[in-house]
């Protein structure tokens, strides 16, 4: 409905909302992350959840030990090729709607270990990532900023219509293929439906 009319009515003490707004307001203020740390970024993630940075202000302090109760996966740290299948499998086991924050240089690109034979060059090769945070490791403020970005993203999601997010579309997949730990590399090395290799610029 019209924002101006809504604002006018609010001045008269009449509060109006829509299902969509109510739904998104509830969802964005109760993001439950999966208690899941991979490397040193996890320490920053833990610090964010404690008293000084106080993730509870965003309704997201309830780190769930089970993927079946979690809405958000914070990929906090280096994803080794040995670990990548487990990360994808945990993501598959989360109920929808589910979101992913790739925290730190390693999770978004391999970071300082990019040249390593055993390091995955970014978790977005296998699962769709909603928010990327650079940094090595990112400070808790950066993670809080990522939370706020995710909240804005959730707030803008439509409930109906062709632009509605994937979790409301029956045909959209909720599970992504789990890569196998192969002899030389993960098989397949990426999921082309989620990630495409960057095309080198030739000019």
């Amino acid at each position: 409905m019209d924002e101006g009319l809504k604002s006018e009515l609010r001045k008269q003490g009449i509060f109006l909302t829509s299902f969509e707004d109510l739904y998104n307001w509830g969802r964005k203020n109760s993001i439950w992350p999966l208690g899941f740390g991979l490397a040193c970024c996890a320490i920053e993630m833990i610090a964010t959840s404690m008293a000084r940075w106080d993730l509870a202000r965003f309704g997201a302090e309830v780190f769930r030990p089970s993927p079946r109760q979690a809405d958000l996966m914070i990929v906090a740290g280096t994803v080794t090729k040995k670990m990548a299948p487990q990360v994808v499998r945990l993501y598959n086991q989360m109920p929808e709607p589910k979101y992913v924050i790739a925290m730190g240089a390693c999770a978004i690109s391999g970071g300082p270990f990019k040249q390593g034979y055993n390091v995955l060059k970014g978790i977005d090769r296998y699962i769709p990532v909603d928010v990327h945070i650079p940094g090595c490791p990112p400070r808790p403020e950066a993670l809080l900023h990522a939370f706020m970005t995710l909240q804005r993203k959730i707030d803008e999601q439509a409930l109906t219509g062709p632009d509605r997010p994937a979790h409301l579309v029956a045909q959209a997949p909720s599970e992504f293929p789990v890569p196998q730990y192969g002899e030389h590399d993960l098989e397949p090395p990426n999921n082309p439906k989620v990630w495409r290799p960057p095309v080198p610029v030739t000019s």
Partner: protein
Amino acid sequence: MQLDYSPYLLIVILLVGAVGFALAPLALAWLWAKRFSPPKPGQDKNAIYECGLESKGDAWINFRAEYYLYAIIFLIFDVETIFLLPFAVAFNGLSAGAFVAMTVFLLLLVEGLAWAWGKGVLVWR
């Protein structure tokens, strides 16, 4: 104004309220899922254990139960200690009969230990 006051009516009202309080969110969630949010079951999501690793092998296997003998012997001597403590505290005032009874009790347990020892229970394999 005099109303017919029935104490059971109050309980019924509270009961209906309590059941409704519990069922209404579930019903709303069910309706919401029907209307907006399609179910998306999948192989990983429906797996029995929520874990990054696939469970392998059979859950119906035998565990080595050797430790239970240690547990039983420990339990016996634990109980013995409980009896020994008041025995020691009241030792000066005890009659000869009580002393003999306690000694018999102790000897029974020591005999049990000797039996377990002779059977080779105390050797960890």
